[in-house]
């Protein structure tokens, strides 16, 4: 299962890079909806990376949940 999570993190990281390029492209060409939408997609990809890291046990639960 850990391998699946690691692959997920790698895939999402690659997607994040793509979305970051979308932000830069949107800004450079004044396509603000593309740039703004890419910001959203990037944040969503980050949220799934955080979730996978948590499921892998690399980030811990909150202090109160321990």
């Amino acid at each position, binding site marked *: 299962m850990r391998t699946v999570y690691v692959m997920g993190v790698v895939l999402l990281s690659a997607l994040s890079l793509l979305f970051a390029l979308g932000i830069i492209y949107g800004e450079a060409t004044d396509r603000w909806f593309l740039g703004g939408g890419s910001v959203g997609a*990037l944040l969503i990809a980050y949220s*799934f990376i955080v979730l996978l890291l948590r499921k892998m046990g690399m980030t811990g639960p909150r202090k109160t949940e321990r």
Partner: protein
Amino acid sequence: MSTVVERQIPGRYARLMTSLLRGTLRLDVWVNRLYPTDFNPLYYTGGLSNLFLFTLVLSGIFLFFYYDASLGEAFASVQYITDGVPYGGIVRGVHRYAADGFIVGILLHLLRNWFTDRHLFARDNPWISGMFLLLFGGFIGFTGYQLVWDERAQLLTSMFVAMLRSIPAAGATLTRLFIGGLGISDGTLVRILFLHIGPATALYAFLWWHYVRLRHPKIWPPGVWVLFCVGLVFLLAGAVPVTREAIPAATPAARPTSFPMDIFFLIPFWLLNFLPAGVVVLLLVSLFVGGLVIPYLSRRETPTEMGVRHSGVAQVIDGNCTGCELCYYDCPYNAIVMVPSPGPGLSKAAANRSLLAVVIESRCVECGICIGACPFEALELPKFLERDVLRQVAEAVQA
């Protein structure tokens, strides 16, 4: 016969609520299989609503700087925000979709707390303040649609005026107050802008009321959900721009008869297709008042039936209190405060104390949590002493 019916109705209601409670808990268990329990979004519906409200405030401040509240310029200023201001269309979309998220979050929060009985007894204050948050949130969303001052806003304003006029006795005065005179003018949009921002400010007063008796409210969701929700509104703002609904600017000559629907904020106006304005107003008032009385009418058990609700307000045994603050941190109702101790306690552990626990009687719900929190026997429920519990246990064993 009537007695039988009266008994059946609470019975059916109790069974319905019990099945809803079970369904809610099953859903919790199912979501907990997908997410770690501290990431379960169902535990943070209130925090998610608060996050969307914060997003609304920030994006609203941005939009406010560019908005011109006059009949001739309002629509043009919104167009300028969308097309001329860098990322203005995105911020407008974020404002719109965060408003939808706010209402969805509030409704989920309401249903969850209703189905799990977390609106009864001492939790009636959060429930009532929550109803006001929902009411004001809905009204603010409606005025937001008016501020654009397109043909939809024009039609909404005339429909709202019809609803106001249908109110007996106060209708004419309320209409004059709303539109600022006998007809729609520049002053009308200024008033609508005030009715958009003023109640939005009041939301934070209601939030204070919502939180004041909760010791550990979950004000914000976990970081993973902050990222996801903020990302979602940005993604929607970019992928589904609010400008896709090309509605022309309002003009005195325009006679719009329909508009694109928003199920979160404009349902009452959709009802006007089938019902007279007065009936819609009556329905809205009934829904709101009905919501307010839910905590008092929908109890499955009365305080007497629960049996443990008359144990008396918790009392601090001065001589035993060490000022350790455990009760202060554990009380879920903010009913215990720590004050500088006027003198040492009587017990050895309390001899060097610097603080003393004091119970705020108006906040205490006699739950006994502080009794369990205190390792020094410095708190008691006066009508539910340890010897009473032991006696009841002994009686139960003998029976």
